[in-house]
């Protein structure tokens, strides 16, 4: 047993500086993404969440080009893209996805240019790799306070707005009738999403950012009843996946190929997806019969069970 623990928690884990920073930042990112993600999934804006992360990384490479701290580049491009999406302001879901796609396409084009100029001016190899996949183990400790602060801001915005946000996410018409400024709430939420996503993209890479935003929230909405519990469960799943992922990545230095750790993004993504798949094992309770009853209404009533019970 002792040997097992020794194997699981490789020696030097607790005393390693990068691991401690990774655990701290990973926790903040996981909690923020988990809570914001519940609304992202409920509003069907996964694509926007992913696009904002990708566009934010474009800002990162742009900031790198002009010698600014990358975090500000991330934040500027993330919020700029969110504002642009809001100005285009397509209300139907299909049209919104197309607009998101166009913004993402333009952002990625800029990323291609920035990376090319970066490589031309500084001969950075693998810049594209870092931008996409990031690394939680190489966060500069000087950016940690800014990361944590922006995470808290995003969290605060979403928690303060949670009631009106939930109402306007589930039924915009009722919200409008009750005097909720649906458009303004949506814009504030999109900004919070941009902050949260660019925070996680700078810390852990664009891929992982989407994984932590969507995976835990989708899982939580399947297993938890009610929005508050869903937020708590989602944050918890995110934190567990992040910690386990960091632990496994640290351990993987002993795995083949020797002396070369496996990427932490892989572990966290794999854990998040496994959690989501596990949620299918749980037998859906009474909300299933309610859904099959309303299933005749058409294919569009495919809302998550959690969102259904949140509405009731």
């Amino acid at each position, binding site marked *: 047993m002792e040997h097992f623990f020794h194997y699981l928690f490789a020696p030097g884990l607790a005393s390693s500086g990068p691991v401690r920073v990774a655990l701290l930042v990973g926790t903040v990112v996981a909690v923020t993404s988990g809570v914001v993600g519940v609304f992202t*999934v409920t509003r*069907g*804006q*996964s*694509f926007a969440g*992913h*696009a904002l992360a990708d566009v934010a990384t474009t800002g990162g490479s742009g900031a790198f080009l002009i010698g600014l701290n990358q975090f500000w580049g991330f934040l500027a491009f993330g919020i700029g893209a969110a504002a642009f999406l809001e100005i*285009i302001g397509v209300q139907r*879901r*299909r049209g919104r*996805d*197309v*607009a*998101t*796609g*166009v*913004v*993402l*396409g*333009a*952002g*990625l*084009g*800029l990323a*291609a*240019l920035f*990376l*090319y100029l970066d*490589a031309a001016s500084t001969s950075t*190899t*693998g*810049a*594209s*790799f870092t931008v*996409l*996949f990031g690394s939680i183990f190489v966060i500069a400790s000087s950016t940690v306070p800014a990361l944590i602060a922006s995470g808290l801001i995003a969290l605060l915005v979403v928690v303060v707005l949670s009631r009106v946000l939930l109402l306007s996410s589930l039924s915009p018409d009722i919200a409008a009738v009750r005097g909720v400024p649906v458009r303004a709430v949506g814009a504030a939420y999109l900004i919070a999403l941009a902050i949260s996503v660019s925070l996680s993209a700078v810390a852990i890479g664009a*891929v*992982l950012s*989407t*994984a932590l*935003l*969507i*995976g835990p929230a*989708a899982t939580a909405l*399947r297993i938890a009843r009610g929005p508050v519990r869903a937020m708590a469960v989602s944050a918890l799943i995110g934190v567990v996946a992040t910690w386990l992922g960091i632990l496994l990545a640290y351990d993987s230095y002993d795995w083949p190929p020797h002396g*070369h750790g*496996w*990427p932490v*993004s*892989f572990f*966290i*993504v794999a854990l*998040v*997806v496994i959690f*989501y798949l596990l949620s*299918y094992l749980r037998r859906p309770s009474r909300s299933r019969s309610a859904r099959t009853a309303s299933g005749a209404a058409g*294919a569009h009533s*495919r*809302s*998550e069970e959690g969102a259904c019970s949140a509405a009731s």
Partner: protein
Amino acid sequence: MFSGFMMNTWIAATIVAVIAGVVGFFAVLRGSTFAAHAIPNGAFAGAAGASLLGISTLVGLAVFSVAGALGIGAFGRRARHDVATALALVLMLGLGALFISVSTEYAQETYSLLFGEVFGVSPDELLPIAILGAASILAIGVIFRPLMLSSAMPEVAEARGVSSARMEMVFLLIMALATSMTVPVVGALLMFSLMIGPAAAARSFTPRPGLAIVLSIAFGLATVWTGIAVSYVTNWPLGFFVGVMGAVFYLAGRAWATLRRTRSVRAAGPGRPAPVTAQPA
């Protein structure tokens, strides 16, 4: 600009623009934009895995793009479509991160697979692109009417016996087919921009599907041809021009649609019904 090796570039880019124009029209019409982003990006991870195993990258691209399409189709039926797409995308990219980190010498190729290597197309790459491109356009031609119907009016299509779930799966597989061939040439990100930008613009310019497909191809061709010429002169990456021109076309289309709407409202008075978009041919 039109010397020997550049001819391959022009031909490959033309084929890709035509495929992207046709497939992209349906992607935009169906709202499968996220899938259009996820499948090429996931396929890129497959290429990394293939180079790790020492097999042809085309096999890796095909396996991952088809697996991604099947995963999105299967899980999208049960849960939210965008959640399934996001999770399929991150899972494939997570595997890609693993493959890339294990095979240490791969990092340089990452850039070219993401952003394309259109100026390095070899003549023997052209034939498979042309064949698979023709296959995916043929497949769309065969299922054109039911696909059109289920994209524009899913309920009506269901009533007539066209299963929208099956249509979605078939369409995603066609997209995977088109993707696995084009990613090594133009890159995962460029393929996405080419599918969405021109098609979205074309949809704003005309409600008629046939004309919209032709316009979508035309915009795509204009984008890549201009992009290649400017990129050849300035040496800036092609992906930049394609992404920006896609956005410009889209904004122009939106502006034109808004202008036409206000003009027609002013001309015909308030009683005139709104133009119906995308009726089946």
